[in-house]
Each structure stands twice: as C-alpha cells, then as structure tokens.
C-alpha cells in the first residue's frame, strides 16, 4: 500500500487512487499518421525497469489527475527520473 502525494490533498493511501497507466506519447492527429504510427501510439507504452512517469486519479479524494515518477523496482516515488528522492 503505497503513499502517494496528491497535489491538492497531500499524502494519501494508494487505495484512494486509481492507476491511470504510464504517460505515453501525446495523441497524434489520427488523420495525419500512418497505420503503423497509430498502432504504435495505441499499444507501445513505457515499461522501464526503474523510474516511470505515470498517471493517477484521486478517485476517492479530490478527483484530480496527476502524474508522478515511480520506480518500478522499489515503489520509491522520485522527483526526477534519475532516481533522486
């Protein structure tokens, strides 16, 4: 049970949040990309061994969406992707 920091509410139990997946590429103009590029956008998401930027929804809280860096090896929430706490 992680402790996540919501920008509005501060530190809260993970159970208040819903995971929104890793932050992937920005949505391209679907009429301006090839099939392959569209499939890449839809299906290829970051999955590193280490810090990953991901979205969380404070569903049982203020309702805000926000992004954090979480180290997939340790659950450490880091401020910047090089692993600094």
């Amino acid at each position, binding site marked *: *049970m*992680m*402790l996540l920091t919501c920008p509005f509410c501060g530190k809260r*139990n993970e159970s208040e949040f*819903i995971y*929104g997946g890793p932050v992937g590429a920005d*949505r391209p*103009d*679907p*009429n301006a990309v090839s*099939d392959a590029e*569209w*499939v890449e956008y*839809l299906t290829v998401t970051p999955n590193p061994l280490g810090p990953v930027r991901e*979205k969380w*929804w404070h*569903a049982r809280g203020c*309702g*805000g*969406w926000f*992004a954090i860096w979480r180290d997939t090896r*340790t*659950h450490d929430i880091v401020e910047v992707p090089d692993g600094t706490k």
Partner: protein
Amino acid sequence: MAQSNRRASGGRIDRNQPLQFTFNGKSYEGFKGDTLASALLANGVRVTARSFKYHRPRGIMGHGPEEPATLVELDGEDASGNRPATTVPLRDGLSARSVNCWPSPEFDLGGINQLFERFLPAGFYYKTFKWPNWHLFEPSIRKAAGLAAAPAKPPARGHFEARNAHADVLIAGAGPAGLQAALEAARAGMRVFLADEGAEAGGSLLHRNLTIGGRPAMDWVADAVAELRGMENVIHLQNATVWAYREHNLLIVNQRDPEQDSILERSWRVRAGEVVIATGATERALVFGGNDRPGVMLASSVQAYVNRWGVTPGQRVVLFTNNNSAYAVAADLAVAGVTVEAILDSRNTVPKAALDLVSGITVRSGTVVSDVRGHKRVRAVKAVPANGGAGTWITCDLLACSGGWNPTVHLWSQSRSTLRFDEELAAFCPDQAVQSCRAVGAAAGVLTLDRIVDGGEDLTYRIEPLWRVDVPGQRGKAFLDVQNDVAVSDVHLALREGYDNAEHVKRYTTGGMGIDQGKTGNINIIGTVALQKGVPLQEVGTTTFRSPYTPVSFGAIGGLREETVLFPYRHTPVTQWNKDNGAVMYEAGARWRRPGYFPKPGEDLQEAVNRECRAVREGVGVYDGSPLGTFELKGRDVPQFLDFIYSNIMSSLKPGDGRYGLMLSEDGLILDDGVAFRLDEHRWMISTSTGHADAVNQQMEKLLQTEFPNWQVMITTVTSQWNNATICGPMAREVMHALGTDIDLSPEAFPFMSFRDGTVAGFPARVVRVSFTGELSYEVNVAPRHMAELWGKVMEAGAPFGILPVGSESSHVLRVEKGFLSLGHEVDGTVDAYDLGMGWAMSKKKPDYLGKRSVALRRSGGGTRRELVGILPEDPNRPIPEGAPLTPGGRKEATDGLVTACVWSVVNNRWVGLALLQNGHARQGETAHVRVKDDVIPVTVTKPVFHDPEGKLLRS
C-alpha cells in the same frame, strides 16, 4: 502426578489460578501465565508431536515463535490450526490436539514412515509421483504429510477487526532496546506505536536473571511500562506481532486478545514516520545425529521454562554450545537445583568470563555431541572430541543446545534493507536501511544488555560458528529443519543434483519453509551449503525474508469484510418496497441491488417474467431506473467534448432534446451506450448504463484533465440526485395523466427523445422520453427524497390499468425482443458499431472522435466479421442457453459465433434469440446451427428485432 516438573516457587505464573485443559484428549492442569507448551512440560509430557514427513516423535524445543516441532490445532471457541504450542496462552477449558499424527503422538501409525526414511529423500515426491500426473497422488500425500485442517466452523463468538493507525515512530518489540527507544521517542512528544508479540513486555529479560542499576531488570521493565502507559501519545500493545513491513513504511500488526470481548483478533495497518526494529535475536539449533529427539531443546528455552514459568524440563541436563550464552543458562539451572552433568563446548578455548559463571560444573571444551540415544526421550548423549576421536556416552534426560544467536532481521529484511554477514557474531546483521528504519539492540547485533541499557550487567558474547557436527561414525539423522524433516543428507543431495543456490536448496528440500520459516535452522542450512561448496557463508547468502513473520489468521487480514459487507452494495429508495413486495433481489452492475422479478405465490421465474412482460406489451409496467449513471456537464466546450467522446454528433442538439449515442474507447471498442440531453446553451446531462457509470466518469475526467486541460467542461455526478420511475407500455400516458402533471404529454408537444421539466404527482420532476423496452415510456425523474412516495403514487395511479413492477429479468426479455444491445451480452470487446448494425452511429462528418481511427484501421483489412443477428429456433419451444456456440452445420468445428441472448417472447409466443454470427448480416433467412452438449439446435437467422420493427410504439 499433576505438574510433576513444576518448581515450588518462582516464575511469572500465578499458582493461585489453576487452569484445566486437555491435550490429545487427556486432562491436565496448568497455571495462569502458562503457555500450552510450558504447561505440557510442567506435566511431564515429552512427546508432543509427530514430524511432517517421517512421523518421528518430537517434543517441545523452543519457547516462542521459533518453535519448530510442536504444532497444535485448537478446538471449540479458539478453533484454529497449526499454532506453535509455545505461542498459545493457556486458558481454562483449552482443548488442543497435535497435528499430523493419528491416533496420538505417543502411538502414531504414520510412524511406519520412519522405516522407509532412506526412500523419502528431498525431491522424492517430485521424482516418484510424476506419472501419469501428480494430481492423482496429491490428495493422499497431502493427508499423510499435511498439517492441521482449517476449522470447520467459524469462531463461536465475536469478529475480526482491521483498523488503521498512524505514528511518528513504530517500535517492533518491547524488550530492553524497544522499551528504551519507546521511552526516548515518547518523552520527545512523538506519537509512538509500540507492539510486542509476547504476553508481557520485557523480551529476553523475562527469562534472564539480569540487573539494571543494581535492581532486577524486570523492575526496570515495570517502570518503563508504567511510564509509557501514562502517556497519551503512546499506543503500547502486547500479544501484537508486527508481521509485515510493506512499502512506504506501512506495517501490519496482528493483535491477539484485544481488550474487547467481541473482537477475536485485530489487524493494525500502521503508517509510520520511522520504524525501530527491536525484535531481538533468535537462538539457533545445533546439528548432530538425533538432534530432533524429545528432550533436545534450545538452551535459552530451557532457561525460559525454568525462570519464567517455574518448570524444570529435565532433571539431568547436558548443555551443548559454541558460544558464551549457554553458561548463563547453566548458572540459572544450578540455582534452580537442576543437575548439570556437563557443558560441552565446541570451542577449544572457553573465555574466562563464561567459566567464572559455572564454577563446580564440568566444562569440556573442544567437544561436540555426535549422537543421541533414546527414541521418545533423550536418555544419553555421545560427547566426542570436535576434531574426532573416541566418544563417551553421558546419561541425561535433557540436552540444551545453543548454536549462537541470529538477530531477528525479518522485518528489517522485508523492508528491503540490506544485510551483511558479521564474522564476529557469525550471523547476518542489518546493514543499509532502505526505508526510514533502524534496528536496535539484539536485532542490530548488539547481543548484551549492558550495551543497550545504561547500568545493565551482562556476560560478553563470544562465538565460534558450528554449522553442523561432522565427526566420523555419526549414526543418527541430523536435522537442519526439524519442522520439515530436512536433514543434512537432503541438502547434500540437493547440491549433488545441481540445486546449489540458497533459494533453490530451499525449494527443493523445503528447508526453511512452513510455520516457523526456519527461524532456528536456516543459518545452518546456509552453513551446510557453504561447507559443502567450500565457499564463505556470505557468498551463499540468505533466502528472502517474506511476510508474514509468524502465522496470521486470514480472518484478521480480512477484518470486518465478511458476510453481508463482503462486497459493497447500493440501495434505491424503492429497495424496501421491492423486498416487501416479494421481489427476488439480484446483484446488478456497479454494486446495485435490483429486483430480478416479482413472483406471486406458486409462480416460477418464467411465469412471473411472462406476466410482467405482458403487462408492458399490453398494458403498463414500471421499473426503478435510478441506478442509471447520470452526469451534468457545464461549460462552453461541452458540445465539442461530447462530439469527441460519442461516435455520433451531439453538438447539434437543441435545448430540450436528446440523442442516443455510443461511446468508444480509443482502441475502437464500445465503452458504453447512453443518452445525451441538452438542458440549455451550456448545460448538458448525459446518462450511462448502470454498470459503466464509473468507467465513463473516469474516461471523461482523464481526457479533460490530462488531454484537454484548456477545454471548459465541468462535470458533476448526479446519479443520486435523480431517481426515476420509468412508466412503460401502451397505457403509460394514461397513468401519467392519472398521476397528474403540468407537462403537455401529447406526442407533438413532447416527442420521443426529449425531456420536459415540470411537476408529476405534485413533485418537481424531469420527465424524459426514452425507451429501453420499445414501448411508449416516461422516465419520471425526481429527487430521491420523493422517490418512495412517487413510487407509491405510480402504483396507485396505475392500479386501474393493471400496472406491474418490472424486474431486471423482464427488462432483459423486453430489450431482446427489440434487439436493443446490452453491454456484456452483444458488446463483448470484439464488436464495433457496424457489426451491431449501428453504422449510423459512426459519424462520417466528424474528422476525429475517440475510437474512429481504430475502428477504421480494424476494418481496413477486409474479411468477414461476427455480426449481430436474430435467431429463431426451428422448434419454437426449444430454449438455447446464452453463450452457446454456433458452428458450421453444428459440427465439432471452429465456432461461427455465439448466442448472446435467448428469451421467451411474449409477443411471438416462442423462444427468440440474438447472436453474433460470422458474416451474419448477409446470412438472413439461412439456417444456422447451435451446438450444445449432446444436441444440435437448428435456428433461422433473422434481423435482430422481433417486435415493432419500425419503432412506431416507442414514438407513439
């Protein structure tokens, strides 16, 4: 003789409070303050268990959670399995049985396995029972080698509880180091959570005769406990084991015997700023032939029984040690009047400080025990020079062993903090902390009191490791893991067969698994591997320490979540009316409880459903549509937002009008279907299916907050601000008139797919003309505070028209007759709008909306798809199970599709169904075949609508 081994005085028991208990059916007496183990020893019960695999007789070896040998099953009120007897507090009327033996540990038929010991090595089951398949043999092996059964009945009284707590500092362990840490933190004003697994605070001081500042150490403990009790910022729990250390300093504590009678156990989930691990140290066993015989015990446990419980587990004791701590035990035994035959020390030189404690007792340095004589109790031990040579038998009835001490690093290690092997202590000790935690006292490798508490006096700790006795001529089986019957020979076998990693050795031999998780023996397994491979012990490393540290009841983890509150549930204001009127209640989507159908006495499901459906088709029915998800949207950008999330165009709607639409996800699958209404220029209301309200809300908020933060759209969930009674059927308008309303109900003034605000039956209402049944329908939305009353008035006003309440079974029939889709039936994660015959919902005008590109991409490959069709079984009375496959000709071939729904149609007087069929749209009029067990059902493929195909009725 009752309590023949009980000392006349001394110990932390109350001799004025005798307690009666039974063990394997025999009655015994103990005292308040006893554990089951201390009471059994007091009564001279030597054989208390049979071993896991070989059914060897075993006795009590330890005095706490490290106990490897004696597991018991408790009956009656305490019903639970696999409890180490050393951790079961004695109470009056306690009834316990040994696990894994029949009929009793003294005379156990399974003991015949001992004769076949050499045929049951590590990996035996894997190798032997692999053909034809392990599952054939598993049940009988589990029975023979298993532990206790789960209690057949729930506990007779009370319930489990789980609760949350927060602390600046959590301290695990209330021994001297833990108490010291608690005092310091509490005096500094911190919120302190102190939890200790024992019945009393004090840790090792409870059974060691030590002094602090010239007074008995337990006086210092009493003072500390009293001071902590007086502080509001301290929670101090005994009988409370910190069993898990999770991420972000969340710890889980299992508290037994909470103060409330009604609570069996309490699970605390504690989020701590800092964690102090003061879990002490665990004594290690020594490994030699017959080291599992009843009467071979840990030295500190013998000390504990003598000092703390006033029990002498033997009269003639031999001590076997590789370190100093056993000398204090010998001294205490001498004081208690127990004969110490000899101290056998594997070290060639014994420090003087140790010798000074035991003047008058024979000490044989450089000596080990190689074998034990005696089957159900120790009768003699063989003392042999450590470097080999002739041995001598020493007659005794108890062998107390000390293999040295392991800091109890379970929690430390669970936190992912690292360990290092300390050469001086010959033990793994805490190294680098990874979370905010620190280890103190013995858990940190500080093994003497004087270095923990000022003024304490203690013998200096010195050790020379001895991982196993290895002298020529050794005969008996030498156990590394007593609980799992893992002997030195098993580890050697594992190494020979290539399992040379510590984790592999553990899994192949099962050494270190089970209830005790190898607390006394793991280090010896690691040492044995190191010796055999000829590498330093730290190179072998430890296996991973995982939670739980000691066994925990499932009930405590679950807490209150059982029976009616196992899953959340939601009611509407009509729920009570439904129950009062005989509804069979169903679990519906999004945790709502809804009426399934309303049977009259003597009616079965089908008869009740037919009656309800006929009411809607021929007269009038009403259902409670409150669970539908409802959202109010506000802002300038709502039109473009709705155009983006729905596949059809919503922005062109005029105030007062609504439109049915599909919501897709970005991958082109159908997320939901629903209706959007424009309330005025900038205010909109959308409704979603019941089960997908949360998913739609999540999708909308995610898009607005993460993709389009500049769009001005504000969403408010109003599902529970609007409840509705949906009146449907040809007589719906008459019922509305009878209710009384100021809304013009004529089809011209109030057409299908629009809404009007006004009053109905005197209540402020928003009436919506949508239809999920295919009939003329008025969805009368009111505030929930008025819903129950409105419902009553609808039933009253509708009575002359024969109105009936309609349950979800009938709703299903009515929508299938109309071919209206249902998510989870026709929409299954493969189909798109075109497959459903709803290509009209996929806007051609809009350049972009969610899912558009993906649908186009998926269809661009060509080929046939499964498409929604109606099916009519050729035998009109033949129902088809929902989900049944369609196959070519009904043959055993790859499926052609599946039946998504099949209902008895009251308008057609026959079974009708819907199906997703390969290339279905082009196959209308053909015969298809449903393949079910032992039968093939021919069906005619039709359009997916069986009632009012033009939709005249719903627009009427």
